Structures are given as structure tokens and as C-alpha cells.
């Protein structure tokens, strides 16, 4: 029997996010012959995001545009997606495991009385069954999970599942705009302080430069930021650096905090406590810079430099600048 797979194609400030293409890629991995993939784009001023998803192979694109959707409001977004779900009646609903997906998916799962598998890092098929791999204990272990019932809700971790590819003949067979249901909103957004505007989101970044206690102060993050800006990456931190007040907790990587899986992870002045390792050890290439040659971080790093980060990091920035020109 053919199924409908519904993806939430996340956009931010009107632009389609990379994770939206990965979510569509996940749907294509799950889809069997005859299944239909429907992508849902919602927000305020989403023309650009809609055009951005069109060439990636969704069968249908459903859109919803309204001023209430300019920022993520759980009430507004739930009402919005509910209207789309009621129309499409999907068997599987997919989200990115982002701030929005983490909030919206469980609401949808509750509404559909569905099971949900969160933070999926891989999707495989075994004997006709779709198997979802996800981390436990922030990556200290992994489990494979299957659904026992439909509908099913899934969130996928950014940076882990291959994004959908551009396909010339893949224009969707329909693009339909659904009216925003205009619910009365209980939650009111009073203000959004955009500290992250223009910056690469940590969980999506291909390059993460992290600082630990070794950065010594708020200013100590400056050389890390310079390198991150050059590489188009994001800055993260260990719990030690957050606890010491050098940076905001939103940057924390570890078992309490964010889990990142970039292509390059550069740990600067981080000793490598087990909680921190849990949050970053799935990175493709790990580089450690630390004064202490005995620091546990060197045990997991692909490359290590024993030295003062304040000397090494600026040199590294200079070297990258040379080769990237």
C-alpha cells in the first residue's frame, strides 16, 4: 500500500535550512515505490524557501504563509502543521532535530497518537523493515529502533543524513497553499534577541571550534571566533568554559548540552571530560590543541598539537587563510 511521507521543510528568516534538504533526503530513504513525499514550508515571507525546495524531488509541496509564523510560536506552528496534516493524512512525519523540530514533533506525535523516534542519525532497511539508528547517552551508545504502529514521527539529527539531491526532472506535481487557521494564541512572543543572527548554527556546522577552561576568559574566545568565521564554522564550548562564565550555556557541547557531528572539530584548551567526549566524539576529524600532553582529549583526537591555544590558534587561522585563498 502506498504511503504518504510528510516532511517539515524548515526555514529560518525566509531561507530554507540545510536540514530541510536532509529531512527530504531521509524521506527518500524511507520511501518505497508508490509512496508520495509531501514537503511543508511554513513561515512569513517564504517565497525564497519555497523556490529552494522545489527542485529537490518532493512530489507535493504544501505552503503556508502568515505573519504569525515569523518566529517559532508553539501554538501557531502546531495549528499550522495540524491543518496541513489533516489535509495530507500522512503515514510518516519527519522533522529536523532542531529547536523547532524538537518542539513541534512531540506535539504532532501526541496529536496523531503516534510513536516518535528522535534524533535519528541513520536510516536502513532490513528485510523490508525501516530501521532507525539513534544515540543514547549523547553518543556513548547507539540503538536501532523500529516502529510498531502507524502513523510514525521521526526527527533527524542535522549533518548525518545525506541531503536530497538536485534533480532536473523533479518538479513537484503540485504546489498548494493552505490557509493559516488563525488560532487564538495563548503564547505571545514579546521579543526575540537575535544573538545568533548571521552565525552558523552549532548543530548544523561543518566546522566547530570549541573552547574549554583554557580560553581563560570571555575574550579568550576571540581567536576561536576568527578561525570559525574564516572556515564558515561555529564556536562551541565545554561545560568548564560555560561554568566559568566565559560564554553562554547555549554553546555547551556534551552530554548535558548539544551534540555535534561536524566534519572538523577543533578542541582548544579542552581537557576532554567523558561528558564532553560524548557530545563530540562522532565528529569526522577531531583536532586537539592543549598545553597538557596528558589531556584525555588527545586519546580521541585524530591530530593533536601540544601547545598554547593563544599561540596555535592564530597560527592555524593564518595557515588556513593561506591555503583557502
Amino acid at each position, binding site marked *: 500500500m502506498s504511503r504518504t511521507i510528510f516532511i517539515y521543510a524548515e526555514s529560518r528568516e525566509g531561507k530554507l535550512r540545510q536540514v530541510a534538504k536532509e529531512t527530504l533526503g531521509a524521506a527518500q530513504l524511507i520511501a518505497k515505490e508508490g509512496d508520495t513525499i509531501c514537503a511543508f514550508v511554513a513561515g512569513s515571507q517564504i517565497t525564497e524557501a519555497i523556490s529552494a525546495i522545489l527542485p529537490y524531488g518532493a512530489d507535493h509541496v504544501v505552503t503556508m504563509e502568515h505573519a504569525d509564523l515569523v518566529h517559532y510560536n*508553539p501554538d501557531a506552528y502546531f495549528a499550522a502543521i495540524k491543518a496541513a496534516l489533516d489535509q495530507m493524512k500522512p503515514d510518516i512525519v519527519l522533522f529536523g532535530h532542531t529547536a523547532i523540530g524538537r518542539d513541534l514533533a512531540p506535539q504532532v506525535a501526541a496529536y496523531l497518537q503516534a510513536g516518535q523516534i528522535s534524533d535519528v542519525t541513520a536510516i536502513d532497511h532490513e528485510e523490508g523493515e525501516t530501521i532507525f539508528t539513534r544515540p543514547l*547517552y549523547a553518543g556513548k551508545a547507539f540503538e*536501532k529502533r523500529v516502529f510498531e504502529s502507524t502513523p510514525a514521527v521521526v526527527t533527524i539529527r542535522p549533518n548525518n543524513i545525506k541531503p536530497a539531491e538536485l534533480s532536473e526532472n523533479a518538479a513537484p506535481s503540485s504546489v498548494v497553499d493552505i490557509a493559516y487557521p488563525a488560532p487564538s494564541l*495563548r*503564547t505571545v512572543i514579546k521579543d*526575540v534577541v537575535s544573538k545568533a543572527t548571521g552565525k552558523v548554527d552549532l548543530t548544523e556546522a561543518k566546522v566547530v571550534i570549541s573552547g574549554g577552561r583554557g580560553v581563560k576568559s570571555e575574550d579568550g574566545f576571540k581567536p576561536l571566533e576568527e578561525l570559525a568565521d574564516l572556515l564558515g564554522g561555529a564556536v562551541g564550548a565545554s561545560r568548564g568554559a560555560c561554568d566559568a562564565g566565559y560564554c*553562554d*550555556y547555549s554553546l555547551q557541547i556534551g552530554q548535558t548540552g548539544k551534540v555535534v557531528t561536524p566534519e572538523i572539530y577543533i578542541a582548544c584548551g579542552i581537557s576532554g571530560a567523558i561528558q564532553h567526549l560524548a557530545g563530540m566524539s562522532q565528529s569526522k576529524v577531531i583536532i586537539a590543541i592543549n598545553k597538557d600532553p596528558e589531556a584525555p582529549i588527545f586519546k580521541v583526537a585524530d591530530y593533536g598539537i601540544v601547545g598554547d591555544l593563544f599561540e596555535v590558534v592564530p597560527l592555524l587561522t593564518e*595557515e588556513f587563510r593561506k*591555503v583557502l585563498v
Partner: protein
Amino acid sequence: MKMVVLMKQTFDTEEKIVVKQGNIVEDGVKFVINPYDEYAVEEAVKLRDEFGGSVTLVSLGPSRAAEALRTALAMGADEAVLISDDRIPDDEYAVSKVLYTYLSKENPDLILGGNFSVDRGSGQVAIRLANMLSIPHTASITKLTINGTTAEVHRDAEGDLEILTLPLPALFTAQQGLNEPRYPSLPGIMKAKKKPFKTYTLEDLDLTEDEVKPATKQTELTLPPERSAGQILIGEPAEAVSELVSLLRTKSKVI
């Protein structure tokens, strides 16, 4: 103000994970209150001290979870409920159904929980509950202010700060930075022993095993492949850095 805190007992984050015969070994492991739930307990106790009312802890888990509840009682919560039944599967659909059944009769003004649990890390149960109870919620809050029947919260959204207001009753999940959880004091520990502590099974909640059938199931559990120590680049910093960039291009092929 009637408050409920959703709490889970988890492995201490310093614990290594050992898998034997497809299961995670729990022998000799130190268990703690899920770190995010600890912020929720602290916030509820602070609000109770400010506005009066009561703080009820609710946990679903094995009997050992009673220790975590005792600790939270010693932090100042008023009473604890442990829902413990081997027939409740490890699946968020089922777990939220059980908790909903309990909470739907309680009508609290405020429900607090952790942002996610550091073991399963799925971050579903609290938000599912808000939806099932038809109350508004904000996840990942770093500040909570109550003004009469309205709450103003700060939410951490991927580095941005959102300031939201919503009416009570409401549900919030705690993010790091919300507060600094207190350590249980000795008098607190003594008092905790006398506080009401209830244990419920499925029957006590009028639920059948059939009603809590899981929607998802684990089929395999593995440890990640171990990372072996790589190459230490020796020499003057400038040389080491130059070698590193060259290796990233030629050997690792990431730039």
C-alpha cells in the same frame, strides 16, 4: 500554586556505558536526578517558597528511582509519586500516556520538567504531555517569572533569546542557566523521610497493559566504534600547524 515536577533518574553523566548481552549494565553505576530535571525541581521549590502552594514530584521508572525522588524531596519538594511497573515499556508514546493518566486528574497550575533526559535524550515526553493536557508550553527556558496567572519566560532557541508570555496552567522544560540547584541539607534529608511518598502501578491508574503498548521498539544496542588516539604533531607551533593543514587536505581530505 500547585506545581508538578516531572523527574527521571539517570546514569551519572560521568559513567561509562558498558553493554553486555544487548543490555546496558547497571551494576555499580551511580544514578542521579537527570541534570535538567534538577533545574526544574529547584525552580519549583523556589516558586513554592515565594508564592506558597505545593511541589509534587512525579517519576516513572524502576524502584531504584525512589532514591532520586528522596533527594529531590530533601531539596524541598513536598511529596513524591513513583509510577513503577515493569509492564510499562521504554517508549515515549506509552510513558506519556501513563503520565497523562496521572496528571489529567491533578490539574496543576504549573508543570516543570527537564529539557531532555541525558540517557534516552529524546526530549518528547514533557511536550507530548502539554499537548495531551491542552495547556501551553515553552521548552528550554532559562528564566521564569510568574505574574499572577501569567508566566514570562526566556527561551534558548539555538543561541537566540526569545521572551514569551503565556497563561497558566502551563508546562515548561528547564535549560541550563535557569538556576543553580541547591544541595540537599541534612535537615532537608531528615524531613524528606517523613514526606508523603506514593507508589503506583498500572492498576492504580486504571490502565491495562494493552493500553500502554509501545509504538516503537529497540532492536539492537551497540557501543560506538572506539576512536583511537591519532597523531601528535610535534615541533615548533608554526611547523605543527602547517603540517596539520597539509594533513587535513591530503590525508583526511576535509578541506
